[in-house]
């Protein structure tokens, strides 16, 4: 090992003799903290907005879980949260129940796990890990955040209007969502929902195009596609999925707006409501379902892939081993991304869609299990004979692998249209997607926050609080969602305000209580994280440059937030990102900036 080599391992680049010729012009508060065009600041803006949205959505879930476990009970908490109109005497109003379920889903899927997850980590990691000064367009990137902010604000504002927010479920199937007579939530609340989501898509597209362009054009010298960390691959594929599928959601939403406001009949036909027949003839709600799920299914992977990318990076770093099957991981993400566009019909087996079409979707959907299985086994093999360092991020990543498997296997049941007949729209489905998508993605997000907090805020989060947070979250998460499978096996439909209106489900009270108790503990546990997060921003221990002894480029930047990320020249990449514990090296990691030794081979696959 040359002298230069070990100098690099201390974390500096070969360029430290460059003078700091970067001009540090003075910035105003507004340009630095508000309308910032710096990817690091935008990433933090996304993260903090997402945390606030997540707390709101989580509180909603606690309110409706209390109703489900103890229907008709009076809770001062519910009254305090919702006031006398929606929580009279502390009993949740049935319309508000549907509204909470709807907005909980909307916020979690779009605002936390799409905007929050991609927005935070694509922004933070893409320029850092490909060795770019910033995103391709800082201005579009700034707009992306502010559209996200505006969209969040509009979504939240709908909570405070007279008729209440949208309440037709997060999938807003018309005619329920199209007709103001159908439910109070289909009045102004629905309009705000549609406006908010349109702005959200604008934000997502601005971000997505930026991510794709940056990854393709702004990689530093030596950063071949096959040397990119899996986080970047995941973000790239996610961004492509978003760019291709979100516009379809807009078209879907625009047609719904036309039906609601302009008297068109895209989704409406033969309807008698509010004491009169409507004029609309010829439309079909099934068209809406096709358009919605054409986004809706890729959306699942838009949520999941960044989390898988993050966990690949975290698991490899903290196992002190290369990720097993780097190329297979890329291949399986590409396969998942491609397949995600041709499976949307598995949400629609029982909608009246031609059953033959259903069988095509059974086939394509079950194919996804193959790349998913490859990913799961590759994660587990990465742990094998590792030297696992249990940072909080690593704990959450292992939690992700577990939930990805546990929730994934029930997908095999649900994708089988024959078996779907009896569990479709029951709690079995609720259990499935919360575990495979909700838990995996949120665990990935937590892993990312714990792992890259030092890059984001230059300080460390408290480790012990991180451990406590993980174990409470992990145990309670399964405590919440696992028993729901058994509700599904008993035939309990989703989105029921109470299961005690008729006797069929009276014996399931104890399951509902267990779920709710775990949910409350889990929710309280999140305050440990929130405290740790905000406390550490201001008072955490100072972070060293490369706390996890990681190989990727972001750890070669100085511990300061400077424009352009690297003072002096950009780093040059000589190897893939996963040279951990490579035989012949005195250290158990070799940063990407270290040149290959004589005769040393690069990368993990393909030769």
């Amino acid at each position, binding site marked *: 090992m040359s002298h230069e080599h070990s100098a690099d391992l201390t974390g500096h680049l070969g360029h430290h003799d460059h003078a700091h010729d970067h001009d540090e012009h003075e910035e105003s508060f507004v340009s630095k903290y508000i309308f910032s065009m710096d990817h690091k600041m935008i990433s933090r803006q996304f993260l903090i907005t997402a945390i606030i949205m997540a707390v709101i959505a989580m509180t909603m879930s606690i309110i409706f879980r209390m109703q489900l476990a103890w229907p008709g009970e009076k809770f001062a908490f519910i009254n305090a949260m919702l006031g006398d109109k929606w929580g009279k005497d502390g009993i949740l109003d049935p319309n508000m129940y549907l509204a909470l379920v709807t907005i909980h889903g909307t916020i979690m899927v779009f605002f936390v796990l799409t905007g929050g997850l991609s927005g935070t980590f694509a922004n933070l990691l893409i320029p850092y890990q490909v060795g770019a000064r910033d995103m391709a367009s800082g201005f579009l990137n700034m707009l992306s955040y502010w559209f996200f902010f505006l969209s969040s604000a509009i979504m939240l504002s709908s909570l405070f209007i007279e008729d209440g927010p949208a309440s037709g479920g997060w999938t807003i199937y018309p005619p329920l969502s199209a007709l103001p007579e159908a439910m109070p939530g289909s009045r102004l609340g629905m309009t705000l929902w549609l406006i908010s989501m349109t702005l959200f898509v604008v934000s997502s597209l601005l971000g997505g195009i930026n991510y794709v362009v940056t990854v393709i054009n702004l990689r530093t010298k030596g950063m071949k596609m096959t040397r990119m960390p899996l986080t970047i691959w995941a973000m790239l594929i996610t961004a492509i999925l978003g760019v291709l599928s979100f516009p379809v959601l807009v078209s879907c939403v625009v047609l719904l707006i036309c039906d609601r406001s302009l008297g068109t009949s895209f989704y409406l036909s033969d309807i008698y409501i509010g004491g009169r027949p409507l004029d609309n003839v010829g439309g079909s709600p099934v068209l809406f379902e096709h358009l919605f799920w054409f986004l809706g299914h890729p959306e699942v992977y838009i949520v999941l892939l960044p989390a898988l990318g993050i966990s690949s990076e975290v698991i490899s770093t903290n196992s002190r081993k290369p990720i097993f099957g780097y190329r297979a991981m890329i291949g399986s993400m590409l396969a998942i991304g491609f397949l995600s566009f041709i499976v949307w019909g598995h949400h629609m087996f029982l909608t009246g869609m031609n059953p033959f079409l259903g069988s095509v979707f059974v086939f394509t959907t079950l194919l996804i299990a193959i790349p998913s299985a490859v990913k799961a086994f590759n994660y587990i093999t990465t742990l094998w004979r590792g*030297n696992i360092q249990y940072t909080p991020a690593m704990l959450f990543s292992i939690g992700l692998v577990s939930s990805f498997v546990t929730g994934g296997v029930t997908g095999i049941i649900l994708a089988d249209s024959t078996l779907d007949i*009896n569990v479709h729209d029951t709690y079995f489905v609720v259990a499935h997607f919360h575990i495979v998508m909700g838990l995996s993605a949120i665990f990935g997000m937590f892993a990312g926050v714990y792992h890259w907090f030092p890059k984001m805020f230059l300080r460390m989060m*408290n*480790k012990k609080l991180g451990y406590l947070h993980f174990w409470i979250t992990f145990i309670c998460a399964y405590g919440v969602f696992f028993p729901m499978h058994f509700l599904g096996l008993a035939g309990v439909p989703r989105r029921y*305000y109470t299961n005690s209106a008729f006797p069929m489900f009276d014996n*399931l009270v104890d399951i509902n209580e267990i779920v709710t108790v775990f949910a409350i503990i889990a929710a309280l546990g999140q305050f440990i994280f929130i*405290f740790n997060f905000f406390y550490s921003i201001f008072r955490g221990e100072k972070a060293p440059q490369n*706390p996890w002894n990681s190989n990727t480029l972001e750890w070669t930047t100085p511990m300061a937030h400077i424009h352009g990320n690297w003072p002096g020249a950009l780093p040059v990449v000589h190897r893939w990102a996963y040279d951990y*514990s490579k035989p012949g090296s005195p250290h158990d990691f070799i940063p990407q900036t270290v040149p290959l030794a004589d005769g040393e081979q690069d990368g993990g696959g393909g030769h």
Partner: protein
Amino acid sequence: MKLLILIGLVLLIIAVHQLMRVVELSRQFKKGNEWSVKDSDNAFNGKAMLAFGFAFIGFFFWQADRWNDNALPGAASVHGLKIDTLWDYNMYLVVLVFVITNAVLFYFAYKYRGTKDTKATYLAHDNRLEMIWTIVPAVVLAFIIIFGLKYWNEITDRSTDPNKITIELYAKQFDWSARYAGNDKTLGETDYRQIDGGNSVGLDTLDTKGYDDIIVKNEFHIPVNREIEFKMRSRDVIHSAYMPHFRAQMNCVPGMITEFKFTPNKTTAQMRKDPYVIQMMAGINEARALKGDEPIEFDYLLLCNKICGVSHYNMQMNIVVESEKDYNAWLAKQKQVKPLAAK
């Protein structure tokens, strides 16, 4: 009360603030840092992972045992029995994968917990292993797909039984009605513009085939061992006709007629004598007694299973399966719509 909560919150914040100051001050006297992962952390978390793995899989079996008699009773329809068999095989497979994969994951998480002196094995890829876990799932999935689609095609095929009974299920916010074809065995045409108080399903008053139709609410009867072809319609928003005991479900979509067919094979009376159902009903009645409600007997139900508005949770209809003789007797007692439609 609110003041007390406020004071409590303020005190809590002060207490946390003081506590953190103590922690920060004590940090200065310690060597090293607090954030880096020590061997003891790895040991603790590795062991906790193993313990969690055991607890998790144990929790799964505990639930499966404890809530075993909550699940829906065995299917009460011919195709439903096939679904149940297919379900069981798929479930065994899935549970096996779930248990093994999680067990290996948590075991590795324990076994390979790090120490200062260990060095990880550099293993970047292994084509043979990766081929195995590409091909094995692919083969298994091929079987799942083949059997799944075979049954799916059977179940969703058009009804060809000349002896079938056609019943229309009509959904609206927030109740169901069922329409029988009457003597001519043909359902009358409908037109949603003709819906009014006396014509709740919108029968076309010019279509004489509808005059002998029979419309019932709250409860409908079907004969055992006859194929029933359901035609579903909706008046206002999407509903879903979910008959869980028969493993039957289909959405009711405004502007469309959707279909589902099944052959019930157990009467309501037979179900009430089924040992599993007796045990399940005992559980239900025990829970009802705690609430002070009267005990009830088993009934088949039609539920709404697509969010349809404020009373979505309370939109159901009883189904009675009985012998053909009882069914005919019941049907004969029902009123035909003729007087209403012809007016």
